[in-house]
């Protein structure tokens, strides 16, 4: 009996140990993290996933999400200086775009792989949102439309960077065919347009105040409008590519293979659709005949009626403000803007306020100009320039009366100026600070560091129409749309009807209006196939005005202390025709499925 009792005891011990095993090894009890079931188990969590998509997708091309750790796209397209030697823009300026990337990018000036990471987040949201129990069908439909629009937004960015890229229409499973290659230009346009059309169906015309920041119908239409605009521009809308692919059959990944004027007509339709939506939704080009305030408001003030979609970033101290806010308010990362002064290459685009041309010093001038000429030029320059730039020795005009936006408070000086350096002429005194520093996006911002990058503004739609009508042969409509923007800036109407001349004027208008916005100058110049792209835009001599200050002057030097000034080449930037489109990362090409863009 005792023996039996013992045996039972032993058996019991064994059974009890194995019985608790399934419980013992159950689902991990991790802290602070949720799995996909939990994410899509509640509206609250699902909304967090949606917000992550917005945050990740929309910043494309702005500091913080261009792959490059330091710089703006303007620093590699002749707007501002290339930065410190550890900045990605400095490297690109020296060595061009490379297949191994620089300063955090995986290739060129973008992070190719990150695009798809973000697209996957959107598709995961799209596929799982139906699992959410405490959300109405209408809310789910809207979120699905938002997800599609966000995918389209990111594809839009890749479209004008790379040409055709692989089309991904959902989250991949391990069993899926993973060997698809790049789409053609035509397939890209068809795909993005379809996404935009489907998204526009499900999106509200406009959002209530609490939800401003989310994609509305107009933003979806704007994505399509910009994509069709780029599709019609000569880089893609061409029988032959800028460089041929190694295998010419692949040329359709980087151009249509034919030039078709009707593509401009499609762009017109898409842009006109945005205008119709704007009329209904209450969005408009701000034009109250107060040019400085109108332009400054449109580019700076949160939720103003001209902005169709902005990146709602209301947080101080992040990459965006680090690289764009040049004022002394930015005291944590002053190095990020320190060597990014405005280039003469950019300055020369601005008109005088009366629509005439300003006269600037030129390379090769026999003698420097007097400081008085500088003051006179700034007095004459158009209002947009004053909203964009804090000119050397002058106050920033966008925050009147605030010490930190005045020259006296600008403790870094902010322009290429030094005392008693007259003998340096015609060379450069300083190769970093140029004629002044940026103040765009900060109208009436005071000490806040954040700003909301405008992703689509009504001004773009009008300029798109101006360009498209001009290319389509309708100069009257072109001028009508161009002058909307041009006259809003306080300038007299343009009357040029010669297609080629008007094309130059329209492009110049883009350069001015979209200084520092969305990499417009970087991308559009390439797609326009500008002949001077290697000669002062992306490549070639980058020039900065140089200021010799009278001996004994007080720092920071006011404009009145400028003795003489001249233009000098600060540095030369590298350009090769391969750079019309971005390279794919070498590591990605090595996997054997993707075809590299030509010249890399």
């Amino acid at each position, binding site marked *: 009996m005792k023996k039996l009792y013992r045996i039972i005891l032993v058996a019991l011990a064994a059974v009890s140990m194995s019985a608790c095993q399934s419980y013992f*090894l*159950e689902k991990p009890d991790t802290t*602070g993290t*949720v799995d996909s079931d939990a994410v899509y188990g509640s509206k609250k969590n699902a909304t967090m*996933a949606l917000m992550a998509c917005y945050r990740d997708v929309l910043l494309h091309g702005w500091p*913080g999400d261009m792959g490059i750790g330091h710089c703006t796209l303007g620093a590699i397209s002749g707007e501002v200086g290339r930065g410190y030697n550890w900045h990605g823009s400095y490297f690109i300026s020296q060595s061009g775009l490379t297949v191994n990337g620089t300063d955090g990018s995986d290739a060129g000036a973008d992070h190719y792989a990150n695009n798809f990471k973000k697209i*996957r987040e959107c598709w995961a949201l799209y596929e799982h949102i139906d699992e959410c129990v405490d959300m109405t069908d209408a809310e789910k439909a809207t979120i699905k439309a938002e997800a599609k629009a966000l995918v389209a937004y990111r594809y839009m960015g890749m479209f004008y960077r790379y040409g055709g890229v692989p089309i991904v229409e959902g989250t991949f499973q391990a069993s899926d065919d993973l060997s698809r290659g790049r789409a053609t230009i035509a397939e890209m346009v068809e795909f993005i347009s379809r996404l935009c059309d489907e998204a526009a169906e499900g999106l509200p015309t406009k959002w209530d105040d609490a939800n401003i920041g989310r994609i509305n119908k107009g933003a979806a239409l704007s994505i399509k409008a910009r994509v069709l605009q780029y599709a019609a521009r000569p880089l893609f809308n061409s029988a032959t590519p800028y460089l041929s692919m190694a295998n010419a059959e692949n040329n359709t990944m980087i151009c249509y293979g034919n030039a078709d004027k009707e593509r401009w007509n499609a762009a017109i339709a898409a842009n006109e659709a945005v205008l119709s939506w704007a009329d209904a939704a209450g969005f408009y080009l701000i034009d109250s005949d107060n040019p400085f305030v109108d332009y400054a408001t449109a580019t700076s003030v949160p939720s103003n009626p001209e902005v169709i979609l902005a990146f709602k970033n209301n*947080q101080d101290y992040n990459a965006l403000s680090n690289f764009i806010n040049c004022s002394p308010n930015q005291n944590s990362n002053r190095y990020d803007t320190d060597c990014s002064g405005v280039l003469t290459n950019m300055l020369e685009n601005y008109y005088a306020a009366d629509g005439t041309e300003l006269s600037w010093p030129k390379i090769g001038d026999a003698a420097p100009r007097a400081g008085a000429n500088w003051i006179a030029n700034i007095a004459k320059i158009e209002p947009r320039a004053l909203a964009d730039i804090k000119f050397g020795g002058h106050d920033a005009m966008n925050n009147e009366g605030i010490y930190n936006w005045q020259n006296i408070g600008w403790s870094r000086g902010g322009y290429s100026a030094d005392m008693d350096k007259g003998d340096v002429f015609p060379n450069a005194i300083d190769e970093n600070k140029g004629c002044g520093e940026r103040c765009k996006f900060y109208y009436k911002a005071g000490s806040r560091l954040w700003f909301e990058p405008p992703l689509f503004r009504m001004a773009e739609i009008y300029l798109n129409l101006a360009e498209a009508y001009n290319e389509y042969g309708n100069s009257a409509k072109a001028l009508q749309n161009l002058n909307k923007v041009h006259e809003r800036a306080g300038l007299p109407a343009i009357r040029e009807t010669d297609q080629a001349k008007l094309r130059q004027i329209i492009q110049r208008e883009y350069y001015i209006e979209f200084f520092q916005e969305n990499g417009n100058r970087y991308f559009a110049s390439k797609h326009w196939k500008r002949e001077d792209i290697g000669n002062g835009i992306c490549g070639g001599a980058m020039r900065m005005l140089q200021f010799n200050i009278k001996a004994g002057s007080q720092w920071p030097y006011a404009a009145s202390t400028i003795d003489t000034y001249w233009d000098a080449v600060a540095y030369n930037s590298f350009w090769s025709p391969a750079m019309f489109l971005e390279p794919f990362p070498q590591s990605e090409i090595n996997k054997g499925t993707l075809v590299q863009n030509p010249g890399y």
Partner: protein
Amino acid sequence: MKVFKHIVSLGAGLLIAGSMMAQTTAAVSTVSGEELYKVSSTSLTNALVGLLPGLTVVQGTGEIDNNGAQLLVRGVGSYGSGNYNSAKIFVDGFEVNMVYLNTLSPSEVESVSVLKDAAAVALYGERGANGVIVIKTKRGQEGPVSVKARVRYGVQTPSNINKPLDSYEYANLYNQAVSNDNGMSWAPAYSADQLAAYKSGKGVNVDWYDQVFKGAGNYADGDIIFNGGSKDAKFNVDLGYVNSSSFLNVENSDQAKNLGYQKFNLRANLDFNILKIFEVKVDLGGRIEFRNRPNYSISQLMQDVAKYPSNIYNVFDDEKGENFSGTAVYPNNPYGSITALGWNHAKYRNLQGNFSIKERLDDILEGLYLEESFSFNSHTASGFSKSKDYARYFNGERTTTNETTTITASGYGSNGMEDWKQGRVTLGYDGNIGKSHLTAMTGMHLSAYSGDGRFSYKYHYANWNGLASYSYDNRYVLDAMFSYFGNDAYAPGHQWAFYPTVAGAWIASNESFLKDSDAVQLLKFRASAGMSGAADSNATGVLSGYSTNGRYLFKDYYANSYIGAFYMGATSGTWQTTLVPMFKANPDAHAEKAMKYNVGVDAELFNHVRVSADAFLDKRSDILTLDNNVLGYLGKQYSFSNIGRMTSKGFEVAGAVFGKSGDFRFEVNGAVSYARNIIDEMSEVAPANYFNAQTGRPYGTIIGLMADGFYDVTDFDEAGNLNSSLPQPAFGSVQPGDVKYKDLDKNGLVDQNDVTAVGDSKFPEWSFNAGIKLAWKGFDFQALFQGVAACSVNLLDNWNQTVAFVDNGNAYPIAKGAWAYYPTENIDTRKTATYPRLTTQSNQNNYQTSSLWVKNGDFLKLRNVELGYNFKNVRLYLSGQNLFTISSLLKDYGLDPESCYGYYPTLKTYTFGLIMNF
């Protein structure tokens, strides 16, 4: 002929007393706790150096509280856990971690064994693939009570410091650097007057290492051990105290504290026999540790002293010595960092209790037993700091915004805690049937760990294992073993895995033809083959901030994202929380597998020679790997799969010759271990050229460019452009004196497609040791040498001491070999240069990982030497550790291979000790 007792006591965690001594089939090396006591260190792992064949030990730094040695069992078997310290550690049958091992006192330890082959690790399942270190603590012996009291005092100095150039040499080279950056036209930054002042000693010339380190630190410990008991109640009680302070140049006060350490430990191991059939063990161990240090990170301090040139400023800016010097570029005056910022205190508390009851079931079946044991182990860390700051001055002016403040205390806070609960049940049988002997057991080990952190919060495993060992006539042994291992890291369906092993041994010396041989006392041949696993992985380390240690990959996890922000709403909007996916779920993720093979021989010959040799093959598969070949458009989500494979092979040979003659006794011993691995598959994206690949090479092989001397003046045209006939480097423009690289793929461009193996891995392939022990009457003497070979050091990993001037850096003797050509200054090193031309600017070309910077990391050290005298029950001794090092790295570059990355130096120790037995 001695009959070897079959001691495979599995209840307490596979305690095998070494392949030499037992009738086991396994490859095991063992060392006694007494040997470990010979090293004075606040970290036990440093005492393992050179004692266990097959265990490679790289000594830890001398930084108190951060001084654990690095351990490797049979090399790096898998890149999955690809680093040191991947072996699992079991103390008295229960798993512990490296922190526990480091703070265990040598006096508590009876023996340390390293389990190496399949037979040895067979029962450990997914804890076994990277080897197991098994520690047995001391237990009471039946007999009269013995008391052993030991005290010792040691002096510790840095074993090596690589000092920078003095101001004069620094300034001379700096002149070259700025001239090189000035288009190679001479443009000195330091004038002849300044140089003369430096040379005559009138200029600023501060040896920052001398400012920060004083002569020596010290180490003292004492312990007292009570041991004894009756047949039914035995005890071993150990009481210990350690006190150590470093050689930082700080006097302890209310305002500042030297790096210092104290430990109080107590362990009581008790055995009881109850009611004739129960054997009960109660083990209680506790430790309290205190650590003080200056309120400045020691690693940052080491970077500062390495980087701050001798001529920047004097320690104090004024004559009175009140104002610390400091500038915007060099703000952290090293002497100020240790004396004027306050101090920091940490406490650690560890308590472990083990309870075991073994019931003999002889009335059911003779030799049957049931054993149940439990272990509770908890560890907590907490601390506080007292901080202050000082104003920095230069030439009488304030240079930074720092203010001199009085000392203020921060709140006392937790630095984390963990607990580990384990339980085991074992049913075993041990008996003889005629000439046959059978040992059999089966059991279950449950382990529940919880700690702090997102994924280390919980870690559970269950290991059901078993063994049948049959031996016949003490001549033939056949073992069959298994582990059926369950792990909560994986999805149901992949949680459980089965790991079988078979092993055999032939004890030839027990055969009739050798039984009576005088020449052969023991001759045993062993062979084993079996499978084990590994469940931890570094692959998920790429998930920054969220490393899962390879666990929980089967579910789609989302994390709160702190990168950037998104807002919603008119005007300034409201902040929105964001959730992002962390990785691509892989429901098939499972444990790594190791298939291990081992053959070995153990022999004792002529009564004076012992030899043990093993050869092994370890095939790893299913190594969890970041799948690099997934195309970007999948969504770049990190995707992990069990796709890696590696092969390791090698051998260990250990031998000893011993004997005595009259009052003279001697022993000479030595061991050589070799382990070489090859990565068979690691999901490497196919590189441009086959020779670029990491795959097919040993793990950690340094891949870089092949340096081919330096560019000469004649390599450039008059405009300063590199001759177009030469391969063009893709790392920015070059000038004479820059490093020239071989264009291995001959495409006219030197870039990342020209990289290849330029050195070994940092993990040594060879490890060897040799010792001698002599005794004459009351005197004894012993010495231990240890070394490693076939490993490389990349000097660029010690950037501050290698790269001169760049980023306001310092210059070291290595920079004196720089290429320079200034005929007007009588400087021409073109033919003898060993270092690229100097520059003060960042230089992409010269500081690429290349063969120029990769150096041999082999070394031989005198690890321990001891002279003792014994009379009656007292022993007095003097010993020294790490007294000298032979290494080409030390000779040529002033760097100790164990301490070559600019960390806190390793230690040289001189100890005097006293041991009394009562």
